């Protein structure tokens, strides 16, 4: 057996070679060992750089959200000023829940405060009902939405195991935002039907 010190050197060397290769593969060659003249790399400078980068990203986020908001508003304007929005939840089988994200837009000039989401009963063509109590919203209360801002809300609808198949329709409303209501649609299918649809899609593709 080699001397312990030789084995340690082997470990040191082998590990260095392996990680050198990996870093090259990732395209992450080391940056300059020392900062260029005039560049301060002190902890305070790093913190300032990180804070500035955070601020830039936050603004980018706002720009993205504003784009989402205004593109929606333009769509509504082109559509004749309709404020009704259509929201389709994923198809669900009885005994499960359907989940999605709903965006709340405050298109008014003033901030909207103390908002609460609530959903109506959903009804199908045979007058079967998914009760309004089956809705869950996260967050279920929103303190404030500034003018022109949007907010995502996680939406869950619990569909009981005795629910009949069919397409159910209803509405989601937002208290204190009278113009913001959404028409909701969800299809409930029996497990066997869902499986058959999946097979059909597989065959078609």
């Amino acid at each position, binding site marked *: *057996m080699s001397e312990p010190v030789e084995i340690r050197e082997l470990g040191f060397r082998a590990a260095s070679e392996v990680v050198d290769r990996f870093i090259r593969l990732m395209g992450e060659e080391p940056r300059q060992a020392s900062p260029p003249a005039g560049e301060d790399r002190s902890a305070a400078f790093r913190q300032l750089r*990180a804070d500035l980068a955070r601020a830039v990203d936050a603004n980018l986020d706002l720009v993205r959200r504003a784009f989402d908001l205004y593109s929606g508003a333009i769509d509504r304007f082109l559509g004749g000023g309709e404020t009704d929005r259509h929201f389709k939840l994923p198809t669900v089988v009885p005994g499960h829940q359907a989940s999605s994200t709903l965006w709340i837009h405050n298109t008014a000039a003033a901030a909207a405060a103390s908002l609460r989401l609530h959903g109506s009963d959903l009804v199908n063509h045979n007058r079967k009902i998914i009760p309004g109590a089956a809705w869950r919203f996260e967050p279920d209360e929103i303190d404030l939405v500034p003018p022109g801002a949007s907010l995502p809300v996680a939406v869950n609808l619990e569909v009981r195991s005795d629910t009949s198949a069919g397409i159910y329709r209803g509405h989601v409303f937002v208290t204190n935002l009278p113009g913001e209501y959404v028409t909701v649609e969800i299809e409930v299918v029996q497990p066997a039907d869902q499986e058959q649809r999946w097979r059909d899609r597989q065959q078609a593709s």
Partner: protein
Amino acid sequence: MAGSATSFVEDVLASHREQMANVLTQYLPNREPRRWLYDLVATYPSRVGKGIRSGLCVATCRAFGGTTEEAMPSAAAIELLHNAFLVHDDIEDGSLSRRGEPTLHRQHGVPLAVNAGDGLAVVGLTPLRDNVRALGSVMSERVFDEFQMLLHRTIEGQAIELGWRSENVLELTPTDYLDMVLLKTCSYSTIFPLRIGALIGSWGGADLGPLTRFGFYLGAAFQIRDDLLNLEGQPERYGKEILGDLYEGKRTLMIIHLLSVADEDERAWLDSFLSAARGKRSPEQVQAMLKMMGDHGSIEFAREFSKGVAAAAREAFDAAFDGLGPSEDLRFIRELIPYMLDRDL
């Protein structure tokens, strides 16, 4: 000195685990079907693990100037994905115990355990979505890219290790072992927890190359220590089946060394031992293998080799955290190096 370093690291980890347990509770679904899915999904996260991976992510984020809240969703995702890997690893390895209790597939059977492992992986995605709220969409996308790399590298490493066993590959060197460990263990245990923590804490300003280097050395020392503990650890502390790696025919550094120094007869015996299915390896054969490792100095070889890797980690530490002010988080990360060599769990 080593004792106080170990106790400092264990204290930090204990406090982190407590915080993480509360966070994980929010992510683990509390709904039907509990008996066949969600109770199983919660089983490994509820058993006390080390918490090194998520703790490293949070500490690195804070050392680079970020906050616990900013790092927590990513740390939770690391923890949940780690547990998902463990469920499937235990099945692939035929392992008997995990964190001091029977493995999930022994408790519930393979099909339900495989599905619960899938469930944990799915649950592990939820905190990444929550990153959008904690970090905004721009940084969340960068963190998500890191997670994608983490997941790819990990399954690639696992495939290599399983392939070696499946095809009874014997011509292996310590470099082959390190290449595999980099992917299988270091990626999700150290390299990416460090990178993700630094990325968030510095908000993209950290040089990730030196962190990758340090993370690899740290993770490799961790894995070699884990392999040694499997041979000589205390069952009640270690939590896994002692000598399980030998029953599984795992290509550890000790086995690779033994294969390189064994004479012709011993090598023929090793070939037959390693090519057998797990259930065919008897306790007598495993003891003979252990004795052979001791006689040929393979255990000592791995111990010394890991010290060399840890020395590389000490050297890489300064470059990885260059210019950061002193903090308890930085101390914790530095003390992890001796901890990896000394830990007994």
